[in-house]
């Protein structure tokens, strides 16, 4: 194993939440299936008596076999655990200003719903 002295390339995210939106599977220009969905993550207060909550919605993208699995098994309303990396995408708006949008590129998605 070689030893590197540069900055380690770490980019890891794991979060859980509820799928609020799932788009249709489509083919990318690389001839791979892609699926996009949104996950709402709710952070509750540490104190059980508190009602304080913060809600975040994150855009997630999956490719290849994982995208196909998600298309088959994940539905809107499913509770999921997503692992992946942060990816920023640049786009130009109508005023021709450049913006960056951040998404999560999933490497693993587990369904957390309790099976009866």
């Amino acid at each position, binding site marked *: 194993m070689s030893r590197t002295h540069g900055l380690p390339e770490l*980019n890891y995210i794991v979060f859980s939440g509820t799928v609020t939106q799932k788009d249709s599977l489509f083919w990318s220009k690389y001839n791979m299936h892609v699926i996009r969905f949104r996950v709402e993550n709710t952070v509750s207060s540490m104190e059980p008596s508190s009602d304080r909550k913060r809600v*975040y919605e994150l855009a997630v993208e999956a490719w290849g076999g994982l995208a196909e699995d998600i298309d088959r098994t994940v539905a809107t309303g499913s509770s999921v655990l997503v692992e992946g990396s942060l990816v920023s995408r640049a786009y130009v708006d109508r005023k021709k200003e450049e913006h960056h949008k*951040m998404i999560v590129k999933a490497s693993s998605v587990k369904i957390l719903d309790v099976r009866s």
Partner: protein
Amino acid sequence: MDIRMPSINKVIITGNLVRDPDTRILENGTHMAKMSIANNQRFRGRDGTWQEKTCFVTVVAWRKTAELISEYCRKGSPVLIEGELTYNAWEDRDGNQRSRVEINARRVQFLERREQDSYQERPSSGKSSGGDNHDSDEPEPDISSIPDDDIPF
């Protein structure tokens, strides 16, 4: 017994500061630092050549961590961030809905190697900043990230 779904939200990312951090003190005296980091990922392209993709991430830190960032981080500084992903939505001057995903830093490690580190490795921290309280917004600084000069003994 009803089981509540666990809430997990963790990010670990390295990168270099794109510009000097933007630091300020809020009206209530709280220190805040905002910085943009560039995370480079190398991968082998379809033609077999190495390619690089850059992910630009906005990171926000509070209190002591913000003070340390202000003191030790500059454009180009390499850092490791541990925190949680947050999502901010607001309305701009033109009334358009805008949103941004950013990292709320709980722990920051400054990865720049100083001269004395070349003959003496810094001790590995392995110590938690204890910043897992999602409501405090008050991450403690990583002990290993404080330069030795600042330790008063």
